[in-house]
């Protein structure tokens, strides 16, 4: 199954060039047929750039003529496709970027024709919705860089979310709740590490057991205790929005980046810290060595088991933070199975981000965007059933996994137990 990456011969390259070109051409035609023909002439689309209640300086909204914009997007896609067929562009990133941009821009212009669509608001909610996904992805990155697969992130996040809300409600402090969530994350991930390192349990099976246990345990506690005592156990409140002085005044960027709660700031901080740690410190070098060639690392005196334990447990703490987002950072109470697959989407983001913290963060933003788009479109009353819009993040995950995993290469020893 690695043939797709290995035999990228001249014919394969040509075939790829044609398939990318055709995709763009078809996308351009689809934009014209689906949106261009259905957009009324002489109508404007307004993209709002201000968010109500924000400290940012107000700016004028961005108004475009709807039909012209949609058709322009179709033309760009067709032109890019034709150019690709004729000449061939090496950078697939650019092609995918053009594809995504023209399609989304045309779609939004069509959906919001004769109406107003708050662009800044959606970008802001993309970052918010990307947060748990990014934290799950970071958990995946740090453990898989040391060659331990953890698909139990979903279960860890559920348990952490519940612990967070209960400890925060009982203690009256959100920070105690946050600490509780991180501790539970460390504990469960530590158990996973213990099983797969000490007992060499199949890593996928162990994580699935964590998912089943996590779902069962949190639902058990929820229906036996939380539902009967909502006020005393399951009502923590949420972290307040912290505005960064000065920076939050910047239009568009201010409300998106600098008016968020602590978990979102922590997530962004973690991305940067993990990138530096992984690529510029001895610890990072050891981690990557253990993930690529544990035997060589062992020969050079690296304690393979210790590195794996530490990384998986740190990963669990990050997933615990992600779990706390669902309750303390979002709604302030626990609902059964409230993570709704975010842990798995995080894994897809990790793969799409090629096991790099920054890549994982960027792809989480794409998922967050798809997620918040779906919500905004329901508000706009687009004539597409909401159930289909809700499918969007899952379909995007599948497409990305399919299109990219062949080229994204996991750490060489990923998933294999190490025996001295």
């Amino acid at each position, binding site marked *: *199954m*690695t043939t*797709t990456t290995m035999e990228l011969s001249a014919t394969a390259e040509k075939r790829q060039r044609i398939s990318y070109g055709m995709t763009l051409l078809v996308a351009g035609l689809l934009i014209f047929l689906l949106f261009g023909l259905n957009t009324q002439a002489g109508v404007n689309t307004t993209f709002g750039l201000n968010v109500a209640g924000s400290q940012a300086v107000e700016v004028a909204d961005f108004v475009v003529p709807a039909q012209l914009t949609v058709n322009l997007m179709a033309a760009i896609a067709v032109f890019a496709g034709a150019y690709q067929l004729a000449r061939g562009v090496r950078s697939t990133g650019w092609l995918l970027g053009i594809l995504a941009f023209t399609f989304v821009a045309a779609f939004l212009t069509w959906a919001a024709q004769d109406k107003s669509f708050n662009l800044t608001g959606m970008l802001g909610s993309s970052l918010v919705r990307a947060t748990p996904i990014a934290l799950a992805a970071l958990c995946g990155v740090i453990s898989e860089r040391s060659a331990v*697969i953890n*698909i139990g992130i979903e279960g860890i996040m559920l348990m952490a979310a519940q612990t967070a809300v209960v400890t925060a409600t009982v203690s009256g402090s959100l920070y105690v709740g946050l600490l509780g969530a991180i501790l539970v994350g460390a504990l469960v991930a530590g158990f996973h590490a213990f*099983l797969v390192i000490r*007992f060499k*349990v*199949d890593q*996928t*099976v*162990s994580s*699935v*057991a*964590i*998912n*089943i*246990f*996590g*779902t*069962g*345990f949190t*639902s*058990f506690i929820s*229906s*036996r*205790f939380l539902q009967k005592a909502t006020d005393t156990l399951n009502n923590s409140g949420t972290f307040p929005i912290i505005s960064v002085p000065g920076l939050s005044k910047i239009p568009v960027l201010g409300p998106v980046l600098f008016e968020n709660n602590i978990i979102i700031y922590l997530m962004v901080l973690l991305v940067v810290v993990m990138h530096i740690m992984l690529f510029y410190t001895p610890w990072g070098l050891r981690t990557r060595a253990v993930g690529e060639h544990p035997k060589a690392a062992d020969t050079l005196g690296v304690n393979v088991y210790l590195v794996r334990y530490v990384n998986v447990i740190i990963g669990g703490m990050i997933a615990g933070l992600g779990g706390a987002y669902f309750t303390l950072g979002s709604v302030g109470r626990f609902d059964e199975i409230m993570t*709704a*697959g975010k842990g*798995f989407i995080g*894994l*897809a983001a990790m*793969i799409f981000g090629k096991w790099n913290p920054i890549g994982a963060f960027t792809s989480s933003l794409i998922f967050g965007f798809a997620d918040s788009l779906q919500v905004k479109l329901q508000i706009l009353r687009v004539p597409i*059933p909401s*159930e*289909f819009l*809700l*499918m969007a993040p*899952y*379909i995007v*995950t*599948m497409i990305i*996994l*399919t*299109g990219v*995993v*062949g080229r994204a290469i*996991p750490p060489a020893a*990923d*998933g*294999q137990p190490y025996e001295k």
Partner: protein
Amino acid sequence: MSETATPSKTQTSKRSSLGQELLVPALAVVTGLIIGAIVIVASGANVFDAYGALFTGSFGSPVRLIEGLQVFFSTGETSELLRAIYPFTESLVTATPYIFAGLSVALGFRAGLFNIGAEGQFFIGALCSAFVGYSVKGLPMIIHLPLAILAGALGGAIWGMIPGYLKAKFGAHEVVNTIMMNWIAFRLSDWLLNGPMKASGFRPVTPNVLPTAELPRFFDDPLRFNLGFFLALAVAYLVYWFLFKTTTGFEVRSVGANPDAAKYAGMSIVKNLVLVMALAGGLAGMAGSAQVLGVDHWVGQGFSAGYGFDAIALALLGKSHPFGVVLSALLFGFLRSGATNMQSRAGIPIDIISIIQGLVIVFIAAPAIIRWIYRIRSIKTEETVLTRGWGK
């Protein structure tokens, strides 16, 4: 699992190895139940009430059974007896979809694929069966019933084939993709049940299937024991025959055990992976068919809740062997059916069963823990390959 013993071993060691293979799962279940008991006590409930309700809910009360038999032999009146065997037959009814779904996951394991999508395949299968069941009119039962079952199997097969193809062709990991297919199935069913397939009325459910598409029941209401149970047993045998007696089955197992060797021997990995995921999806789809055609007769939201994850536990517990799956499906059928009683009688949330299942999976996957707790001497057995890393 006789084929795991090598021919060089003597008959006695073969037997003791089989004994061990059964001993570890049995102890894993016992340990899971013990820890479950601790959780029940910790949550402030009486464990004897709870497990007592679990027992009478799954097997029925022995006292009532004897009374029922007495009444039957003295007067020929069956109603008392039927009431006494009701919990037992309900457990078999609960076990029926588990057998199908467990076979689905077990078949995947045999080819080195981890099918977490049984839940979505189950839902899609149920919806397809229900659709054929209520919309196709005027057919005799002998055609209509098989057609409805086939529709379910086909729907599930398509749902399973998509991740199988993506895995085989592009190396996209089936674990993530089958889960994504689950969520897509849930959203799709939300739409179908609120729109095109909605019965008249307020509730988002399908219309009832026609009597000609129902799996025949053996007793009068409220006993729901039906032909589906025996169909499941027959399919289990078919899966056994396919895996161990056919060339394709051998190929599937070879691809699972060592894909490189299988490829070198000229077997098509792509073909086998797609085939296995289609068959696995078909089996999970049939689980949905059996549930809708045999038990509920209509499909509503949350219809497939939990079956997918239960099926994974079943396949692991049964060591991916069709007969092992049947045994563990029976066990889970009794547990789940009893747990419903436990919830209503002793107030223990049914989710306790998921906790026990998670623990059982851990213990089965890490037999060393069980051996350590119970001081069992370790023997060398062949290990079944379960899963692989990303896209390898």
